[in-house]
């Protein structure tokens, strides 16, 4: 008897993604939807999409979604969670959204220990607007605003937001993973599961930073973009559990 072993998760609509070929957002959307399905929290989950490439995430997730102004995901999620504390609230943000425009909201939500989960997708550039330098752009990386490579003296060094958030009192679980390989995808799913479970147990602020390929703006093939994460990006942003106080 033939058995269907892999198909579209229950909480993703049958809408084709608008993302570029090989984009990590699509994989991360699927992982989040799979975790929501496996934890059985689909009817009480509320997502907060960002401004950026993932702005249309509400077209894809089949759970309640409430769009946030640019960078204000953790602030909007805080409001939703405080009004509806029995719901599972996650914000979904890119690196420009969370580490530049929304730095203040993010740090203070973490410091207050808001019981929300943040999915932080780090592709080391501003993807939607055409590949400008983001705070997370690596030193030496070419972008449309750093031709010739990012220079620490002129442009500053890449910011490690997850490490900063780990210093706050209220954060309980912060891990950095990637979606560049099968092994990393499986680890990412485990990390997202743990972050959601931390929220379900009422522990406090949880965040998963996910290094994601951007073949279009990195001007690479999809496979080279994944290889770049595994060989180059992880040297600046090492994959590890940064903080775990869930036990």
């Amino acid at each position, binding site marked *: *008897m*033939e*058995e*269907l*072993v*892999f*198909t*579209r998760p229950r909480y*993703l609509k049958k809408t*084709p*993604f608008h*993302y*570029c*070929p*090989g*984009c*990590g*957002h*699509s*994989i991360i959307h*699927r992982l989040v939807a799979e975790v929501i399905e496996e934890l059985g929290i689909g009817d009480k989950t509320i997502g907060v999409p960002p401004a950026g490439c993932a702005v249309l995430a509400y077209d894809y997730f089949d759970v309640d979604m409430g769009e946030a102004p640019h960078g204000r995901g953790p602030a909007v999620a805080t409001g939703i969670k405080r009004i509806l504390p029995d719901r599972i609230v996650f914000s979904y943000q890119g690196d420009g959204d969370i580490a530049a425009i929304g730095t203040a909201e993010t740090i203070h939500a973490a410091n207050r220990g808001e019981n929300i989960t943040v999915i932080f997708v780090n592709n080391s550039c501003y993807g939607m607007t055409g590949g400008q330098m983001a705070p997370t752009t690596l030193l030496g990386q070419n972008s449309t605003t750093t031709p010739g490579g990012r220079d620490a003296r002129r442009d500053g060094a890449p910011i490690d937001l997850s490490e900063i958030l780990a210093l706050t009192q209220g954060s309980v679980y912060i891990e950095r993973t990637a979606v560049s390989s*099968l092994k990393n*995808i*499986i680890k990412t799913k485990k990390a997202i599961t743990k972050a959601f479970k931390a929220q379900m147990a009422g522990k406090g602020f949880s965040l998963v930073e996910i290094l994601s390929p951007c*073949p279009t703006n990195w001007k690479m093939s*999809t*496979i080279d973009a*994944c290889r770049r994460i595994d060989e180059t990006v992880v040297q600046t942003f090492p994959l590890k559990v940064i903080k775990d106080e869930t036990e």
Partner: protein
Amino acid sequence: MGESNGKRPMTAKTNKGRIVIDSSLCKGCYLCISVCPNECIAVSDETNEKGYHPARFKNTKGDTDHACTGCALCAIMCPDIAIEVYRG
């Protein structure tokens, strides 16, 4: 792409799996081809309505060197959820 990448088949050489690729969703990133341990996926000569050459499941019946085992690695890697996996 699509040629032998030097990897040896890691899984048992039995034809117990099958995948269905929705070519209208495929954007031709070919990450599935890069992770398939048994080289069961190739690039289609046709284009889909988006203009990409979608990935195509090779008919592996009787070809024990390139037998789909239904391991689902391609589906786990596929960004566009274009692959359904059947086993058994």
